[in-house]
């Protein structure tokens, strides 16, 4: 039904007239009117199937009352509904008695007990007693259907929620109803587990305890749980979650349904990586390098660690200090660090991105779109990373828009992606040449050119490959700005609160509130007193300077350049040549292990504040548990260091910081603390204002491949060696070991059989890796995931090159 056909209709429910929209299901209209109709299979984010019959109510459309499933009956004018009639009650009792015929009622040992719709609705609407005395159905008690999800078929009431989710929402129909009648059961294909990135959602929506999550099984009972509403900061999508703990330990995250962002869904990485917060490997006290044995870190107290840090910063002087990282931080913490760097240290060498993102100018200055805009646009043009791997729930939203709505997804890129299955067109281009391909397309008579220039367009723009520089993405932005001026952008930078960190000025040349350093607001100048005049260095330049011995003190603010910066050699060289490396982190990552001073910070769930997602939406992150050991919030560390350097940030609490942000950051003006603490924060507060006028540089031409090498393409996988994944016991083993993928013809040309170990050579490194032939890889290219456990692509990449080539040789 198109939007114009929707009309208002009036329906009488239990004697009260309610307004509803024609076409909507009765159960949804009743929900809005505050009348709850019991249900098992109906889910507002999925299509109605009428499987369970729990929602039967008396419906009279002029022919007398009749029992009808309210999740399958669209409202119509004059409909009279009784959800409490005797017939309805009898039906409800009957359905529940039926459902319980085969249900084991093992509530005392069931994870769902206490929050189980079957339990609750049996109590509220059930018959109280069963006439069934026969033997119940028996199945093997829980069988794992994936590494993360267990299935207890005895408990299943065949509501089709999990299977519907897998097929309709996730697009991974790996679980199915098999057999029929009394033997119907949910199953996977033998040896083909339900390894969907979104499998955890089925556990959350299962109305009984048939599906349980490995990381939560038998961890807590719902009545011991405490919860706080928060936002996932694993990637920059900002899915809303409920953080749940028991006895001061995080035990579970649940998705919260927010219309503008995640519709209640979470990816498994975001859902289950709470385990990392509880890890025994957490840094809980400060460390300093042993002066007698450089290879060892010694435990120390905060006082001396802070004193030595301050001393190292003072000694280096503003030009020789660099701060890398900040996207793990909340907005408030990022602000404190931004202020500390500029007003106390006096340096502008700050960068929240690790050389794998996009210029802050693009992120902050391109005309912004929201996720909802993308899902309503005529065309979404994706030129960037594989969204399924990097921004999983954005992928889910787009998939929904493409499969259920009228949005056409068009991709331009050198590699296949997880969006291919729902894209209207996936245009393959040469590595780094998306801009060229796009401008050729736009000047051709391809109907797509007209579709793009006449209809609404949202561009999801990011780095298509970490093995190419930012130039191709900048060039793409330039083409779009010139030829599709009506297009708006969602900039696909993926790391946690990177958006918020940039908004708070953790980027060289930028100040809080999306302003350039040359153009500070009056209130900012007044509060900060000192602001560097010139733009400082970004991560890449800082590391280059450090490698050249021009940085004396490097502060890693939750950053691990050895794993995350595209060019590992440069990062290693930089860290080695820097006199003092100060790391503020949760874990001893490979970079932290090289640091001279290690300051332990509080982690997610242990700190409160706000975060900003990919579209610029500010939402809340909540503290649920107390932090271990003597860990401190990042903003406190900044304040302490400031004091020791003779400055004063004049920030005494997170609330305080927010008040200051609201005053000094022009884009955030009017977003008062009261608003941030109000219920408005459920949907989040969207900040779209920006005073940045873009001056896009003229892009360089991509060098031609020499025919001898293969052009390297590298992106991240959802399951990789990311710290929080590695520190989560349930997730750690999900990351595949790295293998380099090449087109079978290229392999044949080289005379190398698929599956063998080969020598991979670039200007940066020579390493041994397994090579796999893959038809989906374009000829002349090689795909290597960026950060799998083992050899990552960062060993081969030269960050100063526009593109990177590799060679493959037999051992």
């Amino acid at each position, binding site marked *: 039904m198109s939007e114009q056909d929707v009309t208002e209709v009036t329906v009488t429910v239990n004697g009260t007239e309610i307004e509803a929209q024609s076409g909507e299901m009765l159960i949804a209209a009743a929900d809005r009117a505050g009348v709850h109709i019991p249900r098992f299979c109906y889910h507002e984010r999925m299509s109605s199937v009428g499987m369970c019959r729990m929602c039967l109510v008396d419906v009279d459309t002029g022919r007398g009352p009749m029992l009808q499933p309210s999740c399958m009956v669209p409202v119509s004018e004059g409909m009279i509904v009784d959800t409490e009639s005797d017939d309805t009650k009898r039906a409800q009792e009957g359905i529940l008695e039926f459902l319980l015929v085969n249900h084991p009622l093992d509530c005392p040992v069931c994870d769902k007990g206490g929050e189980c719709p079957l339990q609750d609705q049996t109590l509220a609407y059930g018959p109280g007693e069963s006439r069934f005395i026969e033997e119940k159905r028996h199945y093997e008690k829980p069988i794992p259907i994936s590494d993360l999800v267990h299935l207890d078929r005895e408990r299943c009431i065949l509501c089709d929620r999990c299977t519907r989710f897998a097929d309709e929402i996730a697009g991974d129909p*790996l679980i199915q109803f098999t057999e029929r009648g009394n033997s119907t059961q949910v199953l996977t*294909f033998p040896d*083909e587990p339900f390894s969907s990135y979104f499998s955890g959602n089925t556990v959350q929506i299962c109305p009984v305890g048939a599906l349980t999550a490995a990381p939560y099984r038998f961890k807590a009972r719902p009545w011991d749980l405490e919860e706080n509403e928060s936002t996932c900061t694993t990637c920059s999508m900002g899915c809303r979650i409920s953080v749940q703990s028991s006895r001061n330990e995080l035990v579970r995250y649940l998705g919260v349904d927010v219309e503008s962002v995640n519709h209640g869904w979470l990816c498994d990485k975001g859902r289950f990586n709470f385990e990392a917060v509880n890890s025994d490997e957490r840094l809980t006290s400060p460390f300093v390098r042993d002066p007698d044995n450089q290879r060892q870190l010694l435990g120390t107290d905060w006082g001396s660690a802070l004193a030595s840090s301050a001393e190292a910063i003072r000694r280096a002087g503003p030009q020789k200090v660099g701060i890398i990282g900040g996207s793990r931080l909340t907005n408030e913490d990022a602000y404190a660090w931004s202020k500390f760097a500029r007003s106390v240290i006096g340096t502008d060498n700050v960068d929240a991105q690790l050389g794998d993102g996009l210029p802050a100018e693009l992120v902050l200055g391109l005309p912004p779109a929201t996720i909802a805009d993308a899902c309503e646009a005529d065309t979404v043009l994706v030129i960037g990373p594989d969204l399924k791997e990097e921004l999983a729930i954005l992928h889910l939203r787009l998939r929904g828009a493409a499969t259920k709505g009228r949005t056409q997804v068009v991709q331009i890129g050198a590699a296949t992606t997880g969006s291919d299955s729902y894209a209207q067109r996936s245009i393959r281009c040469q590595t780094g040449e998306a801009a060229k391909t796009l401008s050729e397309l736009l000047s051709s008579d391809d109907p797509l050119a007209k579709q793009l220039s006449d209809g609404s367009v949202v561009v999801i723009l990011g780095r298509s490959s970490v093995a190419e520089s930012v130039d191709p993405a900048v060039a793409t932005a330039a083409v779009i700005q010139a030829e599709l001026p009506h297009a708006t952008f969602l900039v696909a930078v993926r790391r946690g609160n990177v958006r918020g960190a940039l908004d708070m000025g953790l980027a060289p040349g930028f100040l809080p509130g999306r302003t350039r350093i040359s153009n500070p607001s009056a209130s900012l100048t007044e509060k900060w007193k000192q602001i560097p005049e010139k733009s400082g260095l970004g991560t890449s330049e800082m590391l280059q300077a450090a490698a050249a011995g021009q940085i004396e003190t490097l502060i890693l603010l939750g950053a691990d350049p050895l794993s995350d910066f595209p060019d590992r050699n440069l990062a290693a060289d930089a860290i080695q040549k820097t006199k003092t490396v100060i790391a503020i982190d949760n874990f001893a990552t490979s970079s932290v292990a090289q640091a001279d001073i290690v300051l332990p910070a509080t982690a997610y769930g242990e700190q409160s504040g706000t975060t900003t997602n990919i579209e610029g939406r500010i939402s809340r992150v909540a503290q649920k548990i107390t932090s271990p050991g003597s860990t401190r919030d990042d903003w406190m560390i900044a304040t302490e260091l400031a004091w020791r350097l003779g400055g004063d940030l004049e920030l005494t609490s997170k609330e305080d910081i927010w008040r200051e942000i609201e005053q000094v950051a022009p884009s955030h003006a009017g977003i008062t603390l009261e608003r941030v603490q109000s219920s408005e924060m459920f949907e989040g507060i969207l900040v779209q204002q920006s005073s940045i006028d873009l001056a896009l540089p003229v892009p360089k031409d991509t060098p031609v491949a020499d025919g001898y090498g293969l052009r390297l393409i590298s992106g991240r996988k959802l399951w990789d060696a990311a710290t929080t994944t590695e520190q989560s016991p349930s997730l750690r083993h999900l990351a595949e070991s790295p293998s380099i993928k090449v087109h079978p013809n290229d392999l044949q040309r080289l005379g190398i059989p698929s599956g063998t170990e080969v020598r991979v050579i670039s200007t940066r490194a020579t390493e041994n890796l397994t090579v796999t032939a893959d038809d989906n890889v374009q000829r002349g290219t090689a795909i290597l995931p960026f950060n799998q456990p083992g050899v990552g692509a960062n060993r081969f990449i030269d960050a100063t090159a526009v593109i990177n080539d590799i060679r493959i040789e037999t051992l």
Partner: protein
Amino acid sequence: MTFFTDENLALAEEIIGRYPKPRSAMIPLLHLAQEQEGWVTDDAMTQIGELVGTTSAEVLGTCSFYEMFKRHPVGKYVINICTTMSCALMGAGDLMKHAESRLNVKSGSTTPDGLFTLEGAECQAACTEAPCLQVNYRHQYRVTTDQFDELIDELALSDHDVPDHGVLSQIRQHIPEDRSVGAVPPEDVKVAPVWFSEDGGS
């Protein structure tokens, strides 16, 4: 996955081509797989999934819904003795008992030589001819115990015209080019069907 023989693969492609959506060919392909192997193997389901563009799990879901797709090896001849009302009244119970002792297997199992699988089945729509049974879905009417023995002897000697289990028909449908209505997905049908037009399409 390679399960189908080259010949059957070509046939599979042809069958898929008859439908506007490849998925619609799933059941015909399951029959083809059963014809080739006598039962539907996991490999067959995986290849069918690949051919029609779905997951193996979806093929399994469909396949396992239907009693007549066997997902374990069965004999060359599957004997279904009707056990529903009319047949039961006319001696199906005795017939089954006799069959079990003659074949020396329990209902639901296969003889060690792999020739016969014995099963009880629901009404076969031949109630007037009770008790009845089917051999590879070919009816035998008013079966006495003697007739049953005779039938088994004939089958064992291959002195009969019952094809192996899995073969639905020995004549394969072929739609000549000029009789084919063409495969157009419903959403692409833009004109009313001929029988809707005033002159009946003539």
